[in-house]
């Protein structure tokens, strides 16, 4: 299973390295959203600074929707999905591979956004242990839920509009918890943030578990 995951993740990331869709389109899009928030909220640093954790994670969610769509768009073209099914890779392995590839790309988006909020919003990145400690489980949870809900929308004509409707309500608790954890880290009171990091880890475990259990059901069809 882990070998299969590794193969699928390697394939997706190799494709990303060669096409640079994530780096060339999703990352600039995320930075653009940060700039737009700046316009919307007035470049009054007080508001932006107070809202930084929330804006950061909302932007990550938008980028995640795009990333998940991209991850499955490459599968639905030219019968790649059939090839994947015929390749005798295990379904949980495919799920973990997809999740890993999405997570790696999300980390790249988050690093770019982190630099963005420091420069544009004047955020002070104190308490980086908590920042990393909450961002990693949050990313794992977003990628796992994204990869499970992504496969549900695969091949449908309305997938671009359906995926956000299915995925964003599910990711709302991640936004809530990750924002609270980042607030605690930026306020310099990391003790308040660790329980939220724990909740993020729990979410990630639940969705990795659900994905491993349910992915095969959706993959075996049509």
């Amino acid at each position, binding site marked *: 299973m882990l070998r299969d995951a590794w193969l699928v993740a390697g394939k997706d990331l190799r494709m990303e390295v060669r096409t640079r869709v994530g780096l060339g389109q999703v990352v600039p899009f995320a930075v653009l959203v940060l700039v737009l928030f700046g316009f919307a909220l007035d470049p009054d640093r007080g508001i932006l600074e107070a809202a930084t954790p929330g804006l950061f994670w909302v932007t990550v969610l938008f980028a995640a929707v795009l990333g998940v769509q991209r991850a499955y768009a490459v599968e639905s073209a030219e019968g790649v999905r059939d090839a994947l099914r015929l390749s005798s890779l295990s379904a949980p392995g495919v799920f973990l591979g997809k999740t890993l590839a999405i997570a790696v790309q999300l980390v790249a988006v988050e690093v770019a956004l982190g630099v963005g909020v420091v420069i544009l919003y004047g955020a002070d990145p104190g308490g980086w242990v908590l920042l990393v400690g909450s961002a990693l489980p949050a990313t794992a949870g977003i990628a796992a839920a994204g990869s499970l809900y992504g496969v549900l*929308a695969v091949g449908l004509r309305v997938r671009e509009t359906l995926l956000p409707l299915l995925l964003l309500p599910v990711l709302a608790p991640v936004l809530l918890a990750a924002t609270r954890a980042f607030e605690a880290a930026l306020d310099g009171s990391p003790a308040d943030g660790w329980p939220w990091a724990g909740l993020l880890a729990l979410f990630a475990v639940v969705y990795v578990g659900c994905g491993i259990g*349910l992915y095969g059901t959706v993959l075996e069809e049509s």
Partner: protein
Amino acid sequence: MSIGNEQTAGTAPTVPGQSAPTGHRSTSSPLTRVLGIIVVLCIPLVVWLSFVATPPDRVQGESVRLLYVHVPSVTVAYVACFVTFVSSIMWLWKRSEWWDLVGSSAAEIGSVFTALTLVSGMIWGQITWGTAWEWDPRLTSTLFLFLLLVGYQALRAASPDRSARSRRSAVVGLLLVPNIIIVNRSVEWWRSLHQDATLFRTDLDFRIEGLMLFTWMFTTAVGMVLLVWLMFHRFRVGWLANRVEEQQLSEAVAARRAEATS
């Protein structure tokens, strides 16, 4: 919890036999007629009990009457969602059309009752708390439940092929309950850290007395009968829609065959 479930379980197999061979296009049967008559007769009684017979509440005044709609509708909504959740698990296990239709019927009716819950709750909140919306865990998770049910139905509507539709909606239906639990817990935790729930003392405050309690229980019971009645009809509509789909498919196949041989 499983009333709707079990009752439908006992009688549903009669649907195929009843509606298909005779070409009979109605979704009613003696049982649904009885259920329908019960609902139709009880609703005036519910109106009379909640508006005339019961006194206004000491704390909330006349607005308490809204709760005779609100509390039963939230009960019916949550029961319907639980039926969807259980049906999704059963579908993944049995892979039968029957569980697929039970789950989707319950989800559709559940979303109507969830909307009713939200609207009646917001009107009540506007009167009692002075604000239509509060980031209260119950309120927020009911809104998310509504959004998840809308997503479930959008996914079903978007899947043209029946097997894909059943599979995908069973996965979404199974995740309904864990998602709602996570939302509810996280919002509760978030609110408890930021402010205490003083606003919500009002609805814990009032005592439920004889007739008011009876009205509540009676309205909830009528709501459950309504749910079962609607589910029977929705199930049968879904079953007939599947038959139409099959017939159209076989007609299309026959037409292509005829084209090829002519």
